[in-house]
C-alpha cells in the first residue's frame, strides 16, 4: 500500500515537473503563435482593418478569390518562385563543394571555414547596403568589369537585373549555413567506408558518388527543405533594396513584402491574412512533398 503511494507520488512529481519545465514554452506559443494563428485564419474571411473596426465585415472567400486576379500578388508569387528556383539549387551545390573543401586536408582549414561562414552571421540589412554600394552604377564591381571591357548594368535599379541581383546576394549570404550542416554530415560518415573502398581500388570520383552522396542523402533533403522554406519567406533584401516599394516596376516585389504592404501600409489586414495563408499552404505542401520523398529515400 505504501509502496503504491510512493509510486503514485513519484508519477505525479514527474508529470508536474514536466509541465513546469515546458510551461514558459506552452504559455509563449499559446499567446503568440497558436492564438494569433487562429485569429489570422478568422480575419482572412473578413474585410478587416484595425484602424476602422466598424467597417469590419464577413466576406466569405472573397479575399482568397481576389488573390487570383490581383496582378501585384501574382507578380510577387512569380518573383518569389523564380527567386526560389534560382537560389535553392545554386546555394546547395556551392555549399556542398565548400563543405568538401573545408573537410579535406587543406592548409588553414579553420581560417577558410570561418571565412566561408562569416556572411551567414551578417545582418541582411548590412549585406544589402554593402551590395548596393558594390553594385551601384559607378561602383567597384562595374569598375572591375570595365577593366575587361564589359559595360556593367545598373544592377539593383535595372528591371531585368534587380531580382537576379537579390538572388546573388542571398546565395552569397546564406551558403555558409548549408555548408556547415553538410560539413557535420560529412564528419559523421564512418572513415572505414572510405578505407574499404580504397582497398577495393575505387578512385576519388567513385568514392564521392558511391559513398559520400548516398550517405549525405538525408542531409541533402534537410537542407533542401530549409532552403525552400527560407527562400519563400524572402523579405529583408527586397525591402532594403527597393526601400519598401518592390520596385523598379515590381521587379523585387515578393510575397512577404506584398503581405507587409497590404497589411501595414494599406491596412487591408483581412486580405493580407489571406495572402499569408496562401504562403503557409505553399510552404506546407513543399515540406510535405519533401517529407514523403525523404521517407521513401531512407527506407
Amino acid at each position: 500500500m505504501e509502496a503504491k503511494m510512493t509510486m503514485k507520488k513519484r508519477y505525479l512529481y514527474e508529470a508536474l515537473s514536466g509541465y513546469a519545465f515546458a510551461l514558459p514554452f506552452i504559455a509563449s506559443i499559446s499567446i503568440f503563435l497558436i492564438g494569433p494563428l487562429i485569429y489570422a485564419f478568422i480575419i482572412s474571411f473578413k474585410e478587416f482593418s484595425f484602424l476602422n473596426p466598424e467597417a469590419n465585415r464577413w466576406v466569405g472567400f472573397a479575399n482568397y478569390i481576389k488573390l487570383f486576379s490581383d496582378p501585384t500578388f501574382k507578380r510577387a508569387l512569380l518573383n518569389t518562385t523564380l527567386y526560389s528556383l534560382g537560389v535553392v539549387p545554386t546555394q546547395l551545390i556551392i555549399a556542398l563543394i565548400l563543405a568538401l573543401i573545408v573537410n579535406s586536408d587543406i592548409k588553414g582549414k579553420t581560417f577558410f571555414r570561418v571565412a566561408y561562414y562569416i556572411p551567414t552571421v551578417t545582418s541582411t540589412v548590412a549585406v544589402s547596403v554593402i551590395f548596393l554600394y558594390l553594385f551601384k552604377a559607378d561602383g567597384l564591381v562595374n569598375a572591375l568589369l570595365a577593366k575587361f571591357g564589359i559595360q556593367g548594368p545598373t544592377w539593383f535599379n535595372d528591371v531585368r537585373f534587380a531580382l537576379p541581383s537579390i538572388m546573388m546576394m542571398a546565395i552569397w549570404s546564406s551558403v555558409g549555413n548549408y555548408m556547415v550542416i553538410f560539413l557535420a554530415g560529412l564528419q559523421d560518415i564512418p572513415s572505414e567506408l572510405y578505407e574499404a573502398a580504397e582497398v577495393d581500388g575505387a578512385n576519388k570520383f567513385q568514392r564521392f558518388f558511391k559513398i559520400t552522396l548516398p550517405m549525405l542523402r538525408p542531409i541533402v533533403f534537410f537542407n533542401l527543405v530549409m532552403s525552400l522554406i527560407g527562400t519563400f519567406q524572402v523579405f529583408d533584401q527586397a525591402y532594403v533594396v527597393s526601400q519598401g516599394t518592390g520596385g523598379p516596376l515590381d521587379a523585387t516585389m515578393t510575397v512577404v513584402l506584398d503581405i507587409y504592404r497590404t497589411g501595414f501600409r494599406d491596412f487591408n489586414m483581412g486580405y493580407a491574412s489571406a495572402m499569408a495563408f496562401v504562403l503557409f499552404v505553399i510552404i506546407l505542401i513543399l515540406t510535405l512533398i519533401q517529407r514523403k520523398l525523404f521517407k521513401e529515400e531512407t527506407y
Partner: protein
Amino acid sequence: MKKVLRFLFYTVVVGYAVITLGPFIWSIITSLKPTSELNTFAVNIKHLTLDNYKMIITKFPFLRWFINSAIVAAIVTFGNILFNSMAGYALARINFPGRNLLFMVVLALMMVPGQVVMVPTYILLSKLGWVNTYMGLTIPFLTSNFGIFLMRQFFLSLPKELEEAATIDGLSRFGIFFKIVLPLSKPALATQFIFMFTGNWNSFLWPSLLTSTDNMYTLPVGLNSFYGQYYQFWNQVMAGAILLTLPTIVIFLIFQRYFVKGISTTGLK
C-alpha cells in the same frame, strides 16, 4: 598534371574566401574614407579616419540603436537559451501526459511562417500598449520551436546514467537539469547561442513593424532608415553597416570552435 589540379584547387579555395571577405574589406575601407575621396577607388592610407563613425554616433542616433539592439538581443537570447533547453529537456527526458502531443505541436509549428501571425500579433501588442516598447520587441520572441527541437535532439544523445545516479542521490529534476545536464551541454548551448543571438540581432521585419519612433529602432531598422535618407554618404552608411556587422562576427569567432560539434550533436540534419 597533379600540380596543375592542385593549383586550380587552391585558386578556388582562396578565390571564394576573397568573394566572402572582399565586400567586408571594401566596406571597412570605405567607412574610413573622408567624403572628398568617395568618388575615387584609390585609397590614401594617410587620409583614413574614424570621423564617419564619430559622425554617425554623435549626429545620428546610432549609439541609441546599438544599445536598443543589445538590450533586446540580450533578453531574447537569454530567454531562448533557458526556456528552449527546459522545454527540450522535458520533451527528451520527463514522462508527462501529453508529451508526444506537445512534440508534434513543436514539429507542426516549425512549418508556420512567422508572417502568418504578423497582423494578429501586431493587434495584440497594440492592445497591450506594447508597440514601440522593449516589451513588444522581446516578450513575443522568448521561445523558439526550432531551438526546442535542437535541444531535444541533443538531450536524447546524452547518456542517461549520470542523471539516474543523481536521482538516486536525491537530486530533484531541477537540480539534475541545472547541475548535471546543462554543464554537459556546452556545444549545444553555444550553437543555440550563435543562432539565437545572430537571428535576433539581425532581425529586421518584426522590429520595423513594432517600432514607430526612431528612438526605439533597433540597429537594422535604423541603418535602413539612415540609408534611405543619406545614401549618397556611402562612407557613413558603410560605417553603420560595419557597426551592425561587428558584434555578430565577434561572437561567432569566440564560439566557433564549438560550432560544428554542436551542429552534429544536436541532430540538426
